[in-house]
């Protein structure tokens, strides 16, 4: 594992917001290397900058200073069009609030990234079915998100994140809206996906106990800074 080039490398990354006179350093000089295939948990109290850091890795945001290097490419040097392509092809995202589109069926929700990536129509149905099978929801393919439980909705979101076969899966508090049993089931699913088909996972959470059980390594943030990046076990 350590012989492979790192999936993500953060070099003195800062992201600050200027609000009038004051400057808020949401992420303050963070350097971190995440090897390919690792399941990293990002811990920290609310407002410590975890989501901001994750969005920088996702290419949804740009650092004020420093470099974010993903799969060998410096995101801060990419055009916004190239960043969009990076998000379609290299990254899958899962959110605390699921963010499924309510008027679309599961099939249509999972198909969305394939539409954006201009995948052939003939190929889409199979890939959507495969992704939903992977999360155990193939029987609910024609349902709408509102007809599903929270755990099922999050599993659909995971299927949507997987369907484009990304190298990196980014999850922002994926269990935050779920009861502990359901949350555990989601983390078990992520862990399986990490092994097969094989993926680098960065998961933001504030549940240390779950993080210790499922992640390879814990990084802890506080007030925009990286407090520790030690291994979990």
């Amino acid at each position, binding site marked *: 594992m350590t012989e492979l080039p790192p999936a993500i490398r953060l070099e003195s990354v800062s992201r600050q917001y200027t609000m009038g006179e004051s400057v808020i350093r949401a992420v303050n000089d963070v350097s971190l290397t995440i090897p390919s295939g690792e399941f990293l948990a990002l811990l920290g109290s609310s407002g410590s900058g975890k*989501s*901001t850091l994750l*969005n920088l890795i*996702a290419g*949804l*945001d740009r650092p004020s200073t420093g470099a974010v290097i993903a799969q060998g490419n410096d995101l801060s040097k990419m055009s*916004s*069009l190239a960043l*969009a*392509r990076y*998000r*379609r*092809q290299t*990254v899958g*995202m899962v*959110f*605390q*609030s699921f*963010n499924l*589109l309510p*008027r*679309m069926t599961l099939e249509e929700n999972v198909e*969305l*990234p394939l*539409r*954006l*990536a*201009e995948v052939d129509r003939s190929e889409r149905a199979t890939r959507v079915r495969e992704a939903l099978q992977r999360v155990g929801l193939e029987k609910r393919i024609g349902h709408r998100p509102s007809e599903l439980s929270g755990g099922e909705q999050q599993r659909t979101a995971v299927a*949507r994140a997987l369907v*484009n076969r990304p190298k990196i899966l980014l999850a*922002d*508090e994926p269990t*935050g809206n779920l009861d502990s049993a359901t949350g555990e089931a989601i983390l078990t699913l992520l862990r399986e996906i990490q092994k097969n088909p094989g993926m680098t996972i960065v998961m933001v959470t504030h549940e240390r106990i779950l993080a210790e059980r499922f992640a390879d390594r814990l990084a802890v943030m506080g007030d925009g800074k990286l407090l520790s990046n030690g291994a979990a076990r």
Partner: protein
Amino acid sequence: MKLRDLSDLAFRNLREAVLRNSLTTLGVAVGVASLVAMLSLGVGLQQLATSRLARSGLFDSIFVTPKTNLRGPGAGPPATRTPDAKARLLDADARAEISRMPNVVEVYPQIRFFTEVRYDGKPYATMVAGMPESSKVSGAFDGMQGHFFSSANADEAILQAEFAKELNPQTSSLIGKDLILRYAERQSLGAQGGDAAGSGGFSVVPKEKHFVIIGVVETEPASGFGGFGNGRLLIPLTIAETLRAAQVNDLRDILRGSSSDKPSYSSLTVRVKSPSLVEATEAKLKDLGFSAFSLLDISKTLRGFFKVLDILLVIFSSVALAVATLGIVNTLVMAVLERRREIGVLKALGAADRDVKQLFFVEAAVMGLVGGIVGTVIGWLIGRTIAFGTNVYLHSQNLSSVDISSVPWWLVLLSILFAVGVSLAAGLYPASRAARLDPVQALRYE
């Protein structure tokens, strides 16, 4: 994103707020409908006017006169006139030559003469006019009693209504009756006396000819230039020519001393295939050594008038469309606000700014397209309704119906394209606003 996926998503979004989007689309439809209705009336009136005028023969005709035939008050006696090298006599040869010219449909003289007719044993003095075959399609004979000449050589006569009433107040009873035309025939003295042609004078011999009355018409159609509507007894031009009556210009010929056996015309009317050919033919006729003029300038003025009318109509209905445009802007801005999160999700899943922009453009274009099509249909119906109402009125006034509304294919195409174009312009601001939306803000968990 591919266009098919874009329009898929666009239709889905439009369906989600179906009432609001339908109302917005209806706004576009109303704007387009008023545009189409107004323009269809403008186009219809213009077509009506130009076709009436084209059929009247005023705009595809050239009036030809001999150059030497200076009859103005300033013209001196023949002897003092400097001969024009290019000037030519307007005789039968010239007529044949002109009729052989390309694009010339018909060449005919203005034949009208004052003479006496006998009907039911009583004499009447009246003006006789020769009608060319083409006057049948001029539209002036459309509402006539009876029918047009059965052939160019028929011994048939059409009476002008006022004159017909003099013969018999019950004009319809005149049709089929016999009429005697008394006229003076020109006979060359040279031919009789054995002289060389052109050297003698001619004598005038009184003659009679029988005609059958076949129709009554309100007014004589304006056959080219010259006498407008003063002919009261209309006979086929070919017959009129064979009568070789002593016409006004014949007397002038005598005065001028040019007394050839061949008739020379004081003027000829030349009809060309279409008004667009008038200018070139007119120039050629001048090259041949004749005087020529046409009413082309008047038709240009008329076209200019309709252009101004169209522009005014377009400006009026553009106001309706401008309001509809604001409706689209409003609807799409609301959609952007409502769909903030969805736009954020799309961007997180890899949508580029361009994809988001195109999505809103397609939504605007769909509203424009549907509004344009529905509006064109409604506008067409409004035009038809107005035309129908007009004809009901015309019928109540015992007038023949006209088509004052016309929706040609280019108007359909243009108004739909216009609606789509305007809608796209309206989508410009909302679309770029959606594209600029910061996904991090849109996705922030509240």
